[in-house]
């Protein structure tokens, strides 16, 4: 057995050693991230069979939890960890095609992956804060690394909001520590009934704000369109495919495992609906396609949070499965969209809808890729998005929220409206033809193929998602597997 802690240790080791490698040869650093993510992927995949019911416990410092920090990996975290590595791997392959002089970019990228993997694997609350900070600081570094006006502005906004958000998250952790005397997630979850209600409520509000910034909930998400728009396309992919998914993981872990059901369910429920509607309406009016995609991303995150809160209202493994399906669809679909949008504009960073006219017709492959992303996101059949959207609607129906269902369908129409507008615009008239390398195209094709193949044959994904959801639901199993049958 290969200890999953190596995922973190080796990634760190490689990230730290990039400057040393750079001194050996200037060509080495770009190959480190693919190598690291590949090794991580291998480690995680070999561990799949070892993760049984409940969580797998990996201690540090030779001490059992809750004394020392530990990693706690159940199927849910394993799924997210693998997702992160896969997307990270694809992106790092994508970066191979780009000329980039600064090796520090690769370090930041690798640390970003590390932060995300750490968050999904850790079993300690404060440790998750540390990894969250690694994730956030590296992400606003990456956002600002575009170094033009937009990138800097986006990065600054993200930094400010992220800083305040994570401070409040920290305060939430401290409040829980003060009332339980421990920082271990499983231990806190076990001691949860002993915490007075008002403390629970207050800390959950603090967590809501801290995580709400990451998962782009309505009043806390104002940074998101700016950061997405300002960042380079690959970074936007990373933001939407890795970073926001990590936020979702954290939300699920904290609100479901630790609190045992969303503590402020109703707040999150209404916020999520508002997020979805506001984001989609804002996207409707958008002329800049990238910002439109950003709003759509925010909207999708709203849907995800909505599903989580629906789950909290009505514990049903199907609802959680839906959340995972939505997350997977969004990770791959939106990633594909951002990447192909960049190529469709010829990397001019000019995303006005008028400038995209005919680009899809002139570059049929890119047009196909972009269209695949769009169709999957809006949930057209034969794409994976169809299953996630249908499952979403089924779970809302199961929760007996028919008015919400009607509302969602209406908003889907709005979503379709702006997406169809972009698609139609891509294929009208004559556009400019762009040269594009083999590596980017093949990376994007991988994204697209995964959407189509699993759209036609969703069974394996369903199965995986269901297992992951089931393990997230088994709260008592999680606790007992970490704390040892207490």
């Amino acid at each position: 057995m290969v200890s999953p802690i190596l995922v973190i240790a080796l990634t760190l080791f490689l990230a730290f050693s990039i400057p040393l490698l750079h001194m050996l040869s200037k060509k080495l650093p770009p190959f480190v991230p693919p190598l690291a993510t590949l090794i991580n992927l291998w480690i995680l995949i070999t561990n799949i069979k070892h993760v049984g019911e409940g969580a797998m416990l990996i201690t540090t410092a030779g001490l059992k939890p809750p004394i020392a920090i530990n990693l706690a990996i159940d199927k849910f975290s394993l799924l997210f960890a693998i997702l992160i590595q896969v997307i990270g791997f694809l992106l790092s392959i994508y970066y191979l095609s780009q000329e980039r002089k600064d090796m520090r970019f690769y370090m930041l990228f690798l640390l970003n992956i590390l932060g995300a993997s750490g968050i999904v694997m850790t079993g300690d609350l404060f440790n998750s804060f540390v990894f969250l900070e690694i994730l956030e600081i590296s992400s606003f570094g990456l956002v600002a690394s575009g170094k033009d006006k937009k990138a800097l502005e986006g990065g600054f906004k993200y930094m400010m909001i992220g800083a305040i958000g994570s401070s409040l998250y920290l305060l939430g952790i401290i409040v829980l520590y003060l009332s339980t005397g421990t920082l271990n997630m499983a231990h806190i979850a076990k001691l949860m009934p002993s915490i007075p209600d008002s403390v629970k409520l207050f800390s959950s509000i603090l967590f809501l704000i801290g995580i709400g910034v990451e998962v782009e909930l309505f009043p806390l998400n104002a940074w998101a369109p700016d950061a997405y728009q300002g960042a380079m396309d690959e970074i936007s992919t990373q933001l939407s495919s890795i970073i926001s998914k990590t936020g979702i993981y954290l939300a699920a872990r904290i609100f479901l495992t630790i609190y045992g059901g969303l503590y402020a369910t109703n707040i999150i429920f209404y916020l999520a609906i508002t997020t979805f509607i506001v984001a989609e309406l804002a996207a409707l009016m958008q002329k800049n396609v990238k910002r439109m995609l950003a709003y759509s991303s925010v909207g999708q995150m709203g849907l995800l949070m909505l599903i989580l809160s629906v789950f909290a209202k009505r514990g049903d493994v199907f609802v959680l499965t839906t959340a995972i399906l939505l997350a997977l669809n969004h990770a791959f679909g939106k990633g594909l969209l951002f990447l192909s949008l960049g190529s469709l504009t010829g990397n001019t960073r000019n995303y006005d809808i008028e400038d995209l006219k005919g680009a899809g017709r002139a570059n049929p492959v890119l047009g196909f890729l972009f269209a695949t992303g769009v169709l999957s996101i809006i949930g057209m059949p034969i794409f994976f998005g169809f299953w996630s959207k249908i499952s979403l609607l089924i779970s809302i129906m199961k929760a007996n929220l028919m008015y919400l269902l009607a509302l969602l369908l209406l908003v889907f129409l709005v979503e379709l409206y702006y997406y169809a507008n972009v698609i139609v615009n891509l294929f009208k008239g004559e556009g400019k033809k762009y040269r594009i390398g083999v590596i980017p195209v093949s990376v994007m094709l991988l994204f697209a193929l995964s959407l189509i193949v699993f759209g036609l044959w969703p069974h394996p994904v369903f199965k995986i998602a269901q297992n992951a959801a089931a393990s997230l639901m088994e709260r008592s199993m999680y606790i007992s597997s970490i704390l040892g049958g207490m």
Partner: protein
Amino acid sequence: MDAGLIFYGSAIFLMVMGVFIAITGRHLIKILLGIDVFDTGLNLLIVSFGYINGGTAPIFSKYPNIFKNVVDPVPQALVLTAIVIGVAEMAMGLAIVMQIKEKFGTCNIAKLKELKW
């Protein structure tokens, strides 16, 4: 005067002040400082949570020691981490501000209006 009022009060006062500065400030550095002040207040608050009446620092200079009344060491360890993280965040923020100054030619936050459409 109540010791709680002094420690908690001053920490929370710093937090409030930090937030107020960050919301109303115009200069980017000022805003960053506001966030830093907020972080400092938070750190102070966390450390003051760790205090236990009559406790001393958790360092045992004589060994083998008798278990004596010490303050909670965990918040101190956490604050150490939080401070470092705050430093890192501030460094990153300053770097961004320096580049903004270079590219926009101003540090006035109201002039940062590139991202609208």
